[in-house]
């Protein structure tokens, strides 16, 4: 009836197909991102030197906000329609469900945003030579955004106006990603050693990937009872 694969591959395919249908998904996030890039020069004034000095910072801050957009729905739909109950009855368990969901979220939203990030930064006046590093840092940061964000999404299950709660919970946890991501690019632009900042960014992301699924599974179980 369809492609082969075990339960986890099947879940991944389902998540990807839902992510692309989930309220616009990648297009919405990229549209939001592009919108900020267009509005910033209008608000800031057209002076290229001034724009260039905030380009990478603005690109990273906006990246964090854009990746918040579709997070709220990460667990909510499955929670509301009973699918989360059934997902927890599968052999792999809720921790795996959470990890797969975040991974799919990263590929569906984080990766398109990482492609858009260098374009936005260059449009704002960053040097084109920065593009590869901006892409790499955005891609890594996006991984952290979706795993950290997943904790907020799981914790806000069952509350009204969950989106606000997600933002309040996860934005403080996003700060290291923004600091190290923009820091690496800044260091490179100023001819300094950029590797330590990128390594710290990677370490934070790996820590999030390893720990967040357990927190998400616990939060989901709490919401289901």
């Amino acid at each position, binding site marked *: 009836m369809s492609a082969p694969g075990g*339960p986890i591959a099947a879940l991944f395919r389902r998540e990807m197909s839902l992510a692309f249908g989930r309220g616009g998904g990648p297009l919405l996030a990229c549209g939001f991102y592009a919108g900020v890039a267009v509005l910033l020069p209008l608000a800031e004034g057209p002076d290229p030197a001034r724009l260039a000095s905030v380009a990478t910072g603005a690109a990273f801050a906006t990246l964090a906000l854009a990746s918040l957009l579709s997070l709220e729905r990460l667990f909510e739909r499955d929670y509301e329609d009973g699918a989360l*109950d059934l997902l927890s009855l*599968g052999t792999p368990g809720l921790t795996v469900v959470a990890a797969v969901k975040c991974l799919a979220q990263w590929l569906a939203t984080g990766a398109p945003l990482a492609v858009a990030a260098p374009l936005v930064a260059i449009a704002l006046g960053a040097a084109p030579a920065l593009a590869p590093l901006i892409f790499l840092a955005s891609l890594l940061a996006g991984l952290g955004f979706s795993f950290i964000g997943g904790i907020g999404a799981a914790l806000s299950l069952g509350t009204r106006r969950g989106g606000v709660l997600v933002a309040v919970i996860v934005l403080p946890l996003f700060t290291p990603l923004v600091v190290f991501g923009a820091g690496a690019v800044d260091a490179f632009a100023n001819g300094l050693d950029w590797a330590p900042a990128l390594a710290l960014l990677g370490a934070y992301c790996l820590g999030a990937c390893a720990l967040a699924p357990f927190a998400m599974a616990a939060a989901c179980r709490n919401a289901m*009872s």
Partner: protein
Amino acid sequence: MTDHASFIQRLCLDRLTLERGQRRLFCDLTETLSAGEAMALTGANGAGKTSLLRAIAGFLTPASGQVRFEGPGGELEAETARAEGLHLLAHQDGLKTSRTAGEELDFWARWLGGTGQLETAVEIFNLKPLLELEVRKLSAGQRRRLALARLLAAPRPLWLLDEPMAPLDTAMRRKLGEVMQAHLAEGGMILAAVHDPLPFPTRALHVGAPA
């Protein structure tokens, strides 16, 4: 179909007390369901039928008492028993309206450990004409049939059913009755919350105030 005799053989409710918020639903419920048995769970609306099913599935923590699963070699770890041996059919069927019936059935069969019973399930519940349709286009009865097909697509011994017959037509109710009896004959167990009696002999378990 597979033989269930090797996994969960007995479900034991041991002085189970359930509370929702401040309200006590029932207390000290002790009951045993063994392989090959079906039990009809009755009670007024809000008496705690669904809560009992959710407690057995592990979503609700009992205020006191416990739910135990026993296999051939003695007591099973509850988490494993639930992850591998239990089906829950609830009002919220977990089907995604934006995906086709075929995609959803295929996914759930794989997730719940389906082992190639899909065609049988599709045939028994007459789902062939529906597989290409989006779930949002299905009627309540058709959706229920799709949800029921999961029970066969991924064979598991213990079925927890919450009013399984409700949206089905007469012919399909008869069909489901046969499916349930076949499941019992293979050593399966069924605990079904119902308002109308099931079309075969069952034991009865009443929750809440006496009828």
